[in-house]
């Protein structure tokens, strides 16, 4: 039987909605924390990241894919006394 050539199918980009620092944010499905940081213009070096109240450490950010409804907090050190 002749092998059918592999069809290149452009999957429609599915979006998810997360809560980022208390506000709704739409992201492409399978976005990771690193993708989110890139999107908001942070290199990630000076921020803490939490997903659903759990700290996600820098080495885990690349692999951590976000899901619909995730509550994400990105925190920095601001001025304070």
């Amino acid at each position, binding site marked *: 039987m002749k092998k059918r050539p592999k069809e290149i199918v452009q999957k429609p980009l599915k979006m998810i909605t997360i809560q980022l*620092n*208390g506000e709704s944010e739409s992201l492409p499905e399978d976005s990771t924390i690193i993708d989110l940081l890139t999107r*908001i*213009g*942070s290199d990630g*070096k*000076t*921020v*803490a990241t*939490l997903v659903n109240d759990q*700290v996600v*450490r820098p080495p885990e950010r690349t692999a951590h894919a976000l899901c619909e409804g995730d509550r994400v*907090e*990105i*925190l*920095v*050190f*601001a*001025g*304070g*006394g």
Partner: protein
Amino acid sequence: MDHLQLAAHTFSSRLILGTGKFSSAAVMLEAVKASGAQLVTVALRRFNREQLEDDLFGPLSELPGITLMPNTSGASTAAEAIKAANISRELSGSPFIKVEIHPNPQHLMPDPIETMEAARVLASEGFLVMPYISPDPVLAKRLEEVGCASVMPLGSAIGSGQGLASAAMLSIIIRESSIPVIVDAGLRAPSEAARAMEMGCSAVLVNSAIAASDNPAEMAAAFRDSTDAGRRAFKAGLMRESREAVATSPLTSFLGEQS
């Protein structure tokens, strides 16, 4: 050398700087440099993509010899403070945490019960706990007993500039305490920092007095000098106070005196 000792950490500066309320990050950084401070406080806040300048971690970590002391401001319970402390340690790598729990934004007075609970938990988790407290000698002793690295009683209300309104209570805390006592909050003038140090405080924490000055870097330098002067005076030992005048010049053998 006369150094500030906080657990195993040694600092030559006894002025701790708060980084809030400065007109810009650049102005704050100049003040930090001029102050000679080696410990500076920061507050954990949400990232704001419209205000990237809020993020002070990068610029502060480029200054040599600076250790961060994150605070738990914004927390109104022990649980919130503990959570903020853990996130802050994760981010900063610093063991220092200023436990600051004030439920009422009107007076910003620290909650002693929640502070005690947060301090107990955080000290047991290895944090160097620096609790911001009302000038209460009993609470200060209890915090010492659970392993705090210092106590930080207020001179007067945060940002009020009312100086050492709590001087009498501070004296008792200093006398009774075996850990460093750091006056935190309320100072307005460098002379007040000097007075706190003359009384025997181990350090002072200053923010508003410097940030709200017309020339923050110059005011930071003035606080650096006055903190140092007060410490030197304390170490030298102040003379005894007397109710009567005690002449400094001989009262006899004046010229023309009849013997």
